[in-house]
């Protein structure tokens, strides 16, 4: 195997780790309350701009921008829950989908008005430089982002499966009325879930901003990647999102290498249609 190919594979997996992280937020909300957040990609976009603003105003890198983006997005998530989602989730399907889809447009085009259509990017050397290990050239920013994303995804999984907060959230997702009888407030748990999901998305956005272009419409592409990841991983499953995210990062990277950059998204979208046809329950889901 050539060094270039190894480099492509490693790069793909590192990117995939970030896909896994921001898809975890989507899958968490979907699995817990059967709501698909169509503004999810735009949450990532907002976090990317936050990272940019942190850099321009404070000169700070991800060490500063990750916590700031996490807290800001968690706040946005909780606000979105109380002001919008809580009301539309009990309504008809059309209200649910239109609600978060409208939120997506609102965020996207407000950013368009505030920041313009220009593509922005953070300086390459914000996080270390580029290193050569065993003949593979790696950008420090991607390595750091990938590893942090893996750790946060793992942490999210542990939070959901090993803590009392996690089991309370699970109880609400299975039967909100029964959970209420046990003294758990479904509203409260769902708001926390939105906070956690959006916070994780914020971290992913700040990380991805260190090596990805920033524009108001970047969220649309990222949202579709998150949809594919969640569909492939099985809805509601964080481990599923992890495996699917890594796989998609890898597929994108390899197809960019073999058939060219413009076709990498095309390959991912076609994969999505294949999954829907042949394995709608996802790779990790039960049939």
């Amino acid at each position, binding site marked *: 195997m050539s060094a270039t190919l190894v480099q492509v594979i490693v790069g793909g997996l590192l990117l995939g780790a970030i896909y896994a992280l921001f898809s975890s937020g989507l899958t968490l909300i*979907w699995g817990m309350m*059967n709501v*698909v957040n*169509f503004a999810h990609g735009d949450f990532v976009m907002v976090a990317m701009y936050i990272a940019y603003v942190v850099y321009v105003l404070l000169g700070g890198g991800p060490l500063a921008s990750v916590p700031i983006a996490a807290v800001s997005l968690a706040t946005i998530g909780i606000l979105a829950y109380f002001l*919008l989602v809580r*009301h*539309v989730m009990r*309504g*008809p*399907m*059309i*209200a*649910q*989908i*239109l*609600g978060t*889809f*409208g*939120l*997506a*447009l*609102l*965020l*996207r*085009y*407000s950013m*368009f*008005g505030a920041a313009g259509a220009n593509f922005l990017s953070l300086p390459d050397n914000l996080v270390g430089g580029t290193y050569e290990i065993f003949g593979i050239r790696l950008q420090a920013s991607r390595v750091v982002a990938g590893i942090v994303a893996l750790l946060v995804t793992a942490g999210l999984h542990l939070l959901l499966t090993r803590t009392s907060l996690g089991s309370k959230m699970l109880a609400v997702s299975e039967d909100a009325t029964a959970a209420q009888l046990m003294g758990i407030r479904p509203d409260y748990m769902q708001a926390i879930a939105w906070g956690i999901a959006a916070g994780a998305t914020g971290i992913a956005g700040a990380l991805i901003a260190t090596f990805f272009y920033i524009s108001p419409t970047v969220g*649309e*592409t990222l*949202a*579709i990647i998150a*949809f*594919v990841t969640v*569909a492939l991983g099985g809805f509601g499953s964080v481990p599923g999102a992890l495996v699917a995210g890594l796989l998609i990062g890898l597929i994108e990277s390899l197809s960019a290498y073999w058939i060219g950059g*413009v*076709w990498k*998204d*095309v390959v991912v*979208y*076609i994969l*999505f*249609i294949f999954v*829907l*046809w042949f394995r*709608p329950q996802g790779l990790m889901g039960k049939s």
Partner: protein
Amino acid sequence: MKKLLWPGITAVLLLAYPLVFTTPFQQRLGALVLLYAIAASAWNIVGGYAGQISVGHVVFFGCGAYASLALFTHTGLPPVLGMPLGIAAAVGIAAIIGTPTLRLSGHYFSMATIAVAELARLVTTNTEFLGAAVGLSGPTVPRTWLDLSFISSVPYYYLFLAVLVITLGITWWMERSRIGFYLRAIRDSEKAARSLGARAPRVKLIAYLLSAGLTSVAGSLYALMFQFVDPESGLGILISVKMLIMAALGGAGLLFGPLVGAAILVPLEEISNSLLGGRGAGLTFVLYGAIIVLIARFRPDGILGLFQSARKAPEKHDA
């Protein structure tokens, strides 16, 4: 007789509009309202009646627009003859998306529609045959009347009005037949509808195919009037947004909902564009986003829904 009052008044107003409003801007505006009303009414069949929210309906619009202009570009035939090709492509794509997803929860359908629309835009942007990023143009000078190329907007206005009448006629017929009843039942409770014998996946698929075909017609009409299409104007996500917001604002699942929505939103957008120029486009969509959120939050059945529930209220006492 009373039932025909409002449709009658609407028909008279629509027929008379270009005779009353005679400036080119106003006539163009009228034609655009009708064009978007056709597209939004087509969306309404699957989004409103079946309750399956397509957020990528532009892909069918693009089928029509591209089929018409690609046919002209590559064979020199009049663009209008591309219409059946567009319909066939749209129905084919709808079957590919709809067959697997309409068996699953509605979220999968919505996600798949958005992904396929984006896929179509990406592929088209990189395909020379479809004009790539530059786009395709129609005949600059009309060669025969079949090119349907006019300077005035009035002929387009009446052409679009005729197609809108056909679209609404099909919708009206569907609404009153078994499939329309089944669609409304599935929207309220798919579980119950199936227990009563409604073949839900098939019924939803039929609605989707019909909707896709009609949307493609709207795309071909767009190509006839503007004689140009590129990935943004023919396959951009914002056209999907317009279709669903017009239907939802006017009243999703109501016959005249999309027309009402188009009659409000198209002038709003055109006026804001002419006042604010390019910067207005972004602002319009901030406003669209806000309107969609507000409809979802407070009035999921739209403006006409408001009137309908007001009208139905007294019946409670009769019961």
